[in-house]
């Protein structure tokens, strides 16, 4: 790969998905894009770059998706889900006792393990949420991972990463070597394609936003920009949950860390919310929690 080709791909990826590659990631590009080029019948990276420059739509999507890291597990890092169950939801149940509804956004849901983990947490809360409207929106840049998330079908290997065995037995149905999450849980989640670099105001406002292990791939300015826009989509008393290697500290004052609860953040200035125009959610699919 020539330096010009590398620079072109770097800029292309940064503009299309935010992915910020340092100057020495040629090997990463080659290992991910060479197989893709071959599959498309192209001779190599040079021809791939030409096609991208010519604006080949399918190839653009394929290249962007091939460069994303989709790795995820059920209940990844465990602690955030303990916080969700023991701190976030109890607070929300108190604060929203009047309207009895909660909106949750998984901003980089990948193949669905994260939103389904949240759905299982909510199910486990049982009677505390009887009669509540619960909405979980899972978004991701990649159509490929969204399809998998929608199907909710996982390999034996995937269901053994982070998922307690009792939960597997309780919430999945086995078909041959694969396991599918129950229709009732699938119905709790709405999956949508969304690029975090683009406007997401149309999603409306949320009580809880999980945005984990995606901002790490972006440069500082992109992170700041996304934090500032996330702040407009969160209720003044809502919660932002970041990944283990991510923080707002030193980047923005729109959120502040919650002491003693790693990975949890609150919006900083509740007055900003008053100035915010009311946003209606686009065709929300509300699922009433059935009694246990």
């Amino acid at each position, binding site marked *: 790969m020539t330096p010009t080709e590398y620079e072109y791909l770097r800029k292309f990826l940064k503009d299309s998905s935010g992915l910020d590659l340092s100057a020495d990631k040629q090997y990463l590009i080659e290992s991910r894009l060479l197989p893709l080029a071959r599959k498309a019948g192209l001779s190599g990276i040079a021809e791939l770059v030409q096609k991208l420059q010519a604006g080949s739509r399918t190839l653009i999507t394929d290249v962007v998706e091939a460069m994303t890291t989709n790795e995820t*597990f059920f209940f990844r*890092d*465990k*602690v955030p889900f303990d916080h969700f169950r023991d701190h976030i939801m109890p607070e929300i149940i108190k604060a929203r006792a009047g309207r009895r509804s909660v909106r949750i956004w998984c901003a980089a849901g990948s193949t669905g393990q994260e939103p389904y983990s949240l759905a299982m947490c909510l199910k486990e809360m049982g009677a505390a949420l009887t009669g509540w409207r619960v909405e979980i929106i899972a978004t991701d840049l990649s159509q490929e991972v969204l399809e998998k998330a929608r199907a909710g079908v996982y390999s*034996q*290997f995937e269901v*053994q*990463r*982070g998922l*307690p*065995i*009792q939960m*597997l*037995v309780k919430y999945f149905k*086995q078909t041959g*070597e694969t396991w599918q999450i129950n229709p009732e849980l699938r119905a709790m989640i709405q999956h949508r394609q969304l690029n975090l670099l683009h406007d997401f105001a149309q999603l409306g406002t949320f009580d809880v936003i999980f945005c984990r292990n995606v901002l790490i791939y972006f440069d500082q300015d992109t992170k700041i920009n996304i934090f500032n826009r996330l702040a407009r989509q969160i209720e003044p008393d809502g919660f932002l949950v970041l990944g*283990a290697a991510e923080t707002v500290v030193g980047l923005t004052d729109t959120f502040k860390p919650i002491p003693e609860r790693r990975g949890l953040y609150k919006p900083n200035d509740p007055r900003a919310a008053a100035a915010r125009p009311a946003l209606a959610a686009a065709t929300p699919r509300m699922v009433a929690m059935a009694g246990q």
Partner: protein
Amino acid sequence: MKTCLVVDDSSVVRKIARRILEGLEFEVTEAEDGAKALEICQRQLPDAVLLDWNMPVMDGFEFMGHMRRLPGGDQPKVVFCTTENNVAHIAQALSGGANEYIMKPFDKDIIADKFAEVGLIPVGQAMV
């Protein structure tokens, strides 16, 4: 150092499991069937048992029943590790007193995750 008893009739599986568990800082003992495992437990109970199901002499399920009835036998965390990968077997193991269940094939990540799940290792350790 926590102790783990690896019970499997395949010496290859025991060896792989031993390497992974020693990496997670367990002191490992091995048994090739349920009867031998029970003898070991009668002398001293381990903190954890990684347990195959189908074995000659005494299978894993029967072993677990005997072990759970020993004085203090409710203490060890039992993690099944077997090719039996259907819900019926999993449910039987859980109601018989198993704490977790691994469907073979397994690797270091799965063992670490499952051991963290039952509190045998800290959650952070499962991530390295």
